[in-house]
């Protein structure tokens, strides 16, 4: 299915879930409401017309504060349907003061580690994740390194960092 068709299908099944659409992007994506994400994820995976069996990638990004907005975090899910050969990016934008995003680890098991990574590096808290711990950094690491405002600490457990 083309992007427009996908969008129509999703809108019909879950009205109000899609907040923005970006067909012009290199990888077209939609912005969805945080509360609707779990339902949308199930729809995307289980609807035979959509059939997004593969979560290709789950990334977090940090959008620094601009003139109009305070800084925000985004979690983006890149989906692919091996059967229909179509792709879709699904993005959720979160306020960095309340970085809670519903987990999709129950829908696509591969999201488990990717979510842990996004939590580790960016501090996005995936609610409902079975085991949300740091994955790359040590458990007692401070801060989330990929945030734009991250300052590398001088030492870690007595060892100089630079």
């Amino acid at each position, binding site marked *: 299915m083309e992007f427009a068709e996908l969008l129509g299908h999703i809108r019909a099944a879950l009205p109000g879930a899609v907040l923005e659409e970006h067909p012009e992007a290199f990888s077209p994506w939609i912005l969805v409401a945080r509360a609707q994400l779990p339902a949308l994820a199930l729809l995307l995976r289980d609807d035979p017309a959509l059939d997004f069996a593969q979560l290709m990638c789950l990334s977090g990004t940090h959008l620094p504060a601009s003139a109009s907005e305070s800084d925000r975090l985004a979690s983006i899910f890149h989906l692919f349907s091996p059967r229909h050969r179509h792709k879709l990016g699904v993005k959720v934008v979160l306020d960095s003061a309340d970085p809670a995003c519903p987990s999709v680890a129950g829908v696509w098991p591969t999201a488990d580690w990717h979510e842990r990574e996004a939590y580790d590096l960016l501090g996005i808290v995936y609610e409902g994740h079975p085991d949300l711990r740091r994955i*790359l*950094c040590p458990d007692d*690491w401070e801060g989330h390194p990929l945030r734009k405002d991250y300052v590398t600490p001088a030492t870690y457990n007595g*060892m100089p*960092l*630079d």
Partner: protein
Amino acid sequence: MNLPIERHEGGNIILTSAEWLVNEAIARSLWPLTFGLACCAIEMMAAGAGRFDIARFGSEVFRPSPRQADCMIVAGTVTMKMASRVKLLYEQMPEPKFVISMGSCSNCGGPYWQHGYHVLKGVDRIIPVDVYIPGCPPRPEALLEGMELLRDIIRGKRPRPDAAARTA
């Protein structure tokens, strides 16, 4: 260097003449710890394989347990998460023991020097290093040369790197 006979320092000791034998034995039989960290470990494996054949120098006996190893080849980037383990493994090796720092990353952090918030900038910050092999990654020949240098150090022909710079 008189590592194994340190306890007899100042004693009469036949060992002055035996020291040569002792040092030769240690130098010519360096069993490395099976321990690879990153890219350099692949070159370390290549050094063990057919073309470069570290076995020629008697070092093909990669011991998986530090208890039986003589030298630790820190081959790759040491991260903050790994550093304590590297240190523990080093500590668990029996004396006399040696460390070869293979590659820029373990020498000084290498390409991760500037922005690598999670990278230890040089393994010599946690364990004393005897030989530094430059390169990213060093070629297997460089590792063989590094082991040759280590042999010279053991034989006392070449000083160990400045003791003050080594954190023990």
